[in-house]
């Protein structure tokens, strides 16, 4: 067996602009995980992004609920529009359902991370220490800096970071130990993993594939060929995400 891999960023369902042969089902995900020896995955449903958050969460629960190798990440948003459960109830339901992470799409769902809009939601996530993933194109690093500082117990996973952003990511990681970087595409920096580990950020990096949009093999060799210690590789491959998930407050 190779190094245990726990993918922090896998997706099922139909992506709006997916080409015809892009996989969509949980069966296809599991087949790919078997083929590539990916042991576990944190999974979201594209319906939560492309169609409607509650529909996506329901479909995620129906399609993979209770699967021993798959953890669920719900799509959540503030109740400011009157069509979502109150934040504390919503995040309580998330935890009670067995989901172990949240995804935020402020840009897509037309809200913002400022306290006047998202404070109650962010506090609820922070109280439960729910790992919270935000794609880079759904916010900006200035706003993220504010959220990380105001909610220091909330673990925030930045996904789809760009390979061009290290001039901001380095100081952001330095200042906020509650920031984590998903290493799935497009965070594909020459010597990037090595640079972050040399700056003592190995505990803030997570193996992720971006499946089904992205080729998971790319993320595997990205981490396996990185010039880092085996201890750091273990943390990135699975240890950090396991620690975050174990930290969710029931």
């Amino acid at each position, binding site marked *: 067996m190779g190094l245990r891999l726990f993918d922090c960023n896998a997706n099922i369902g139909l992506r709006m602009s997916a080409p015809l042969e892009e996989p969509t089902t949980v069966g296809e995900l599991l087949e790919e995980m078997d083929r590539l020896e990916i042991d576990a995955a944190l999974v979201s449903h594209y319906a939560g992004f492309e169609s409607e958050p509650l529909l996506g969460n329901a479909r995620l629960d129906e399609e993979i609920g209770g699967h021993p190798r798959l953890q669920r990440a719900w799509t959540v948003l503030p109740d400011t529009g009157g069509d979502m459960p109150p934040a504390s109830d919503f995040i309580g339901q998330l935890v009670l359902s067995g989901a172990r992470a949240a995804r935020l799409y402020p840009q897509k769902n037309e809200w913002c991370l400022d306290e006047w809009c998202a404070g109650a939601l962010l506090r609820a996530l922070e109280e439960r220490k729910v790992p919270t993933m935000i794609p880079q194109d759904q916010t900006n690093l200035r706003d993220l800096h504010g959220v990380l500082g105001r909610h220091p117990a909330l673990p925030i996973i930045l996904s789809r970071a760009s390979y061009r952003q290290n001039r901001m990511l380095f100081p952001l990681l330095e200042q906020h130990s509650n920031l984590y970087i998903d290493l799935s595409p497009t965070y594909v920096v020459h010597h990037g993993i090595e640079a972050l580990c040399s700056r003592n950020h190995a505990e803030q990096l997570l193996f992720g594939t971006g499946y089904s949009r992205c080729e998971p093999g790319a993320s595997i*060799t990205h981490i396996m060929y990185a010039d880092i210690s085996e201890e750091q590789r273990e943390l990135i491959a699975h240890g950090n995400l396991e620690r975050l998930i174990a930290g969710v407050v029931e």
Partner: protein
Amino acid sequence: MSNTDSIARRARRGEKLDDVVIIDAHGHLGRFFNFPTATANAEGVLGVMDRVGVDCICVSAHVAAVGTDFVRGNDEIVGAVQGFPGRFFGYTTVFPNRAEGVLPEIQRCEREGLRAFKIHNFHGKKYTDDAYQPAFAYANERSWPVLAHTYGPEVPVIRELAQRYLHVTWICAHSGVAQFEDYLGIGKDLDNVYLEICSSLSGNRRIEIFVREVGAHKVLYGSDAAFIAMTPQIGRVALARITEDEKRQILGLNAKRIFGL
């Protein structure tokens, strides 16, 4: 791993692929304005190549390919090619916005040993622009390869040029990142067009479809390193659902033939 081969097994474990000819058809060297590039030099790239088992990388300079300093950039490439024999193959970046950036620069670099071009529409000119044509005619007379930055809309332009300059080997960089069907079409239709695969997004199953629809003999491994990391693109090929023989063609044997290495 199930249904796999020796390349896939070793790549999954991060083991050096030292019995596989690996030639990276798309690389860059040097500093750049847009992001930190402290180790984007020949030594920094060689370190990754040695860990993976990449024999040679075909490079142009950041400051030339996506900048304006074509003389200094091309000199940087000459330095790497001459400083590390066999490990770097150099592209001359053609700079179409100044006459001295075309034939005089090509001939200057040819005297230093460079025998292929890199072109990039970052420079603001369509590849069918008159400014480029002396370069392509020169390459056509010598059967040199041209690596063209593409991101979808350029494919019809390459199709036109490939039918005009039949002795040039046209390499479409970033094949499949957008307008996927156009890449399948040009790869199938034209013998002198090859599909180079690098993409920061690493679109799923693109390589398997290229192999099935176009053929492994027309697909080239490229990484875009050190603009981005070298190692993800290795995984896209090494762990793809294709045969080991097809992987070997894509990883290096096709490039060995095209570049005469």
